[in-house]
């Protein structure tokens, strides 16, 4: 049972354009969502996060949108750069009593930014 789903395994975008990566979740107990970026032979690197009390969080070229009613979040990268080419993972957690908890990951979307 995949609780976090990334239905697009790959995405190709031209340099300078917007990249939009999507993620859906099924567990209504999730209240904190993160995006990670992964290069080959490296561990995932944290990009941006959002808690369920917000519907948008922005950090430079990266913006995450959360639609709780649709259980959907998206990551926008604008403008896209060749160095953004990587696999992007959506992850979710349900924090309990203010303590940390495990992350549940999607299967990833491979983004390729072309010149």
């Amino acid at each position, binding site marked *: 049972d995949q609780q*976090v789903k*990334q239905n697009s395994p790959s995405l190709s975008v031209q340099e300078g354009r917007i990249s939009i990566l999507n993620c859906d979740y099924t567990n209504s107990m999730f209240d*904190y969502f*993160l995006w*990670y970026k992964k290069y080959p*032979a*490296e*561990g*995932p*690197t*944290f990009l941006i*996060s959002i*808690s369920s009390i917000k519907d948008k969080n922005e950090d430079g070229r990266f913006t995450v949108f959360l639609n709780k009613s649709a259980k959907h979040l998206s990551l926008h990268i604008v403008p896209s750069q060749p160095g953004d080419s990587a696999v992007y*993972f959506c*992850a979710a957690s349900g*924090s*309990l009593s*203010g*303590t*940390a*908890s*495990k*992350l*549940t*990951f*999607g*299967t*990833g979307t491979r983004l390729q930014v072309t010149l």
Partner: protein
Amino acid sequence: GAGVSQTPSNKVTEKGKYVELRCDPISGHTALYWYRQSLGQGPEFLIYFQGTGAADDSGLPNDRFFAVRPEGSVSTLKIQRTERGDSAVYLCASSSGSSYNEQFFGPGTRLTVL
């Protein structure tokens, strides 16, 4: 400062052997996590430590897998009687231990069971 480190980076073993994978978290991080990533999948949770104790081990697939963190810093993931299906990248992450904090990942150990 230093990030999360994992050793070895690669481990090749034979079916039935015992392996140990080591994780050095970021200094001061109280929470430590182990995940396993198979080809084409996202990381899958195995176990989480808060300090020295395992706060959640619900992701360990069976009793061949065990992890320890005796002094609340370095952790070792131990796999007994390895099987070919155990082949994967084993990732370690650490965090400050409070909610709404990102987890910082190490580069992983690629385990291959022949």
